[in-house]
């Protein structure tokens, strides 16, 4: 076995031999899961009193909905299209909260837009979907087949409801998604910081108990540093994998029990869909979790190499834990800076500074997660990959520089 692998293996074995690792592996994600459930349940806004205006230029719905209407949602019809500006500003539409836009071919293209003035609770979303979809199904079944409405529901394709904020009708900010991405990105930096500290402490320990002198009689300092970063990084990845498995199991469990897939009409009872809140929708319906998970790992690995080199150098420069704390401060600032750039980009997604932060190695993991959570096209995905490449190149350059500094300082006691 090569010396590098031997050193890496020892690092891994040492961490896996610690009880703390296993506690963190199981308890960590469970705590996150519990917090998530609490958050999802707390986000339920209850029933909202709403006035809905259905713009139906083709008069498809014939001013009619299904018999069982929710008393807190009131529907009104308009036989024409309505400009969004007018709906938002005109006094005559002041009392309306929601505009449903049914295009004339909705029975064929099965897509309609729902614009809302204030954030909608999921109750309202589901009720709205339920009412409109049922009515449209009734019409489709009547127009195109002799089968019963019930039989039709078994074979039909669902209507796509595109809910949009009136203040952001093109859905450019996707603020909720962005915040979810921000949380993923912050988790990257959190784990990098957590395990970076492990590199820092392990380096100081080797230095203070002088084993480093024995090791350096067999391996190069750069080899020692890199094996520490890679070994501890792999342990961190293992921990993340464990988190991923526990969280995935929790995700499946929650989806099968508390937060069933309510957007799937096959889960709807006669009385319409179950209640669910927007946060649950975001978590269970809008985020592409596998894609986010994959990129999380990629960006974590690259940023761990980047920050790991810095932690190792600081460890090599320090002579004791206490001495090292002062060196750590700038590094903690850098990690915090990465988090703050994430907040900045959520609020100001289209500024030049945000573009710059997207490629800056200190902040790119967070911004990439935000971009991925908001959804991406070929162009934006290329930018994400480019930022990953910049991060990797920076990490390798930094590792080279750090190796030199590590070599010069590790034997200074």
């Amino acid at each position: 076995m090569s010396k590098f692998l031997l050193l890496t293996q020892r690092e891994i074995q040492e961490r896996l031999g610690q009880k703390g690792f296993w506690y963190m592996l199981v308890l960590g994600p469970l705590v996150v899961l519990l917090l998530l459930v609490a958050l999802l349940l707390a986000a339920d806004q209850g029933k909202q009193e709403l006035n809905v205006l259905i713009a139906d230029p083709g008069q498809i719905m014939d001013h009619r909905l299904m018999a069982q209407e929710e008393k807190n949602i009131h529907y009104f019809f308009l036989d024409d299209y309505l400009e969004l500006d007018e709906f938002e500003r005109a006094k005559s539409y002041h009392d309306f909260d929601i505009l449903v836009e049914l295009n004339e071919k909705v029975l064929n293209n099965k897509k309609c837009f729902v614009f809302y003035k204030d954030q909608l609770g999921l109750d309202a979303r589901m009720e709205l979907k339920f009412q409109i979809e049922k009515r449209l199904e009734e019409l489709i079944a009547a127009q195109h087949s002799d089968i019963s409405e019930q039989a039709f529901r078994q074979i039909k394709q669902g209507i796509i409801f595109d809910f949009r904020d009136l203040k952001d009708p093109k859905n450019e900010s996707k603020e909720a998604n962005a915040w979810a991405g921000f949380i993923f990105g912050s988790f990257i930096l959190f784990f990098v910081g957590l395990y970076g500290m492990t590199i820092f402490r392990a380096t100081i320990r080797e230095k203070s108990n002088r084993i480093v002198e024995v090791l350096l009689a067999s391996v190069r300092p750069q080899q020692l540093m890199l094996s520490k970063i890679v070994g501890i990084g792999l342990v961190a990845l293992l921990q993340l994998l464990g988190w991923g498995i526990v969280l995935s199991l929790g995700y499946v469990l929650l989806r099968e029990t508390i937060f069933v897939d309510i957007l799937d009409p096959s889960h709807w009872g006669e009385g319409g869909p179950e209640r669910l809140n927007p946060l649950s929708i975001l978590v269970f319906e809008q985020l592409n979790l596998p894609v986010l998970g994959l990129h999380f790992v990629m960006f974590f690995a690259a940023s761990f190499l980047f920050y790991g080199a810095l932690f190792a150098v600081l460890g090599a420069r320090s002579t004791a834990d206490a001495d090292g704390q002062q060196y750590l401060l700038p590094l903690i600032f850098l990690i915090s800076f990465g988090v703050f750039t994430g907040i900045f980009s959520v609020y100001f997604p289209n500024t030049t500074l945000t573009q710059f932060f997207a490629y800056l190695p200190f902040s790119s993991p967070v911004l990439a997660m935000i971009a991925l959570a908001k959804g991406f096209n070929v162009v934006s995905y290329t930018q994400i990959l480019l930022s990953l490449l910049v991060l990797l190149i920076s990490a390798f350059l930094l590792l080279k520089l750090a190796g030199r500094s590590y070599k010069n300082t590790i034997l200074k006691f």
Partner: protein
Amino acid sequence: MINVAQVSKSYQRKLVLDDVSLEVPKGQIFGLLGPNGAGKTTLIRILNQMASPDSGKVYFNGHTIQKEDLQDIGYLPEERGLYKYMAVRAHLLFLAQLRGLSKLKAIENVDYWLQHFEIKDWQNKRIASLSKGMAQKVQFIAAIVHQPKLLILDEPLSGFDPLNVDLIINEIKALKAQGTTIILSTHNMKSVDEICDQAALLHHGQILAQDTVQHLRSKHAKGQIFVRFRGNMLGFANALWTDFTLLEQQEVLPGCFECVLQIRGQRSVNDLMRNLQDQVQVEHLELLLPSMQEVFIDLITQKENQHV
């Protein structure tokens, strides 16, 4: 075996090694002596390739020393370190493999040395639970487990009780007998007297002296003679005449005396023997050589006086 040729090294503009040259012959025990801060550790780190010289070269078996040669070098640093939470055997296996042994060979060698040092029962204990002496043994094994051709020992006897000092000294002698070249850096001059074939004295980054231990001691002999005789003390004193000064005298048995004399002028041991021939019955006569401790102090004092 090792040839250090005009090696200089500075740290932050401070000259730590100044044009150091020395030669360590194969199969010998070479004492690297010097007060604290003389540059011994820097020289040892250069030999171990942890540091590179600013100028000069180090040759190992005739060629410029290379990374690959580290497999043939064993090193026991002065400041000992082990991973406290590793088990003894696992730790030794790890270090043996780092030194280039295959896993099988590492297992074979580690088990042999654990048995040899009678610490087999401790093989699964964590280093943290060992006594200092026990940990020292583990570190000593770590330095020799890969059967190095060159063994560098920096203060190998510090921290050991007298019993274990003997054990380590015997091991060092045994390794020499097997053909291992040993560089011994130590302040323990008794061990230098006892086991070193050659020695070099490093002071302020310069080599003050390098020779066989015997030559170094002879060169610094102060002309003192030990004599044990039977007879009359008065007759003995008269026989010394003005050629020798009586420094110490002791009657060890009735009519049996042991004395230390100082030679005066150009007189020799032969002159003393001639003077005593008809006066007393000489049982033992020996030219007293200084210990390495005295040689060490002598050389340093001479150098300091030159500076003054």
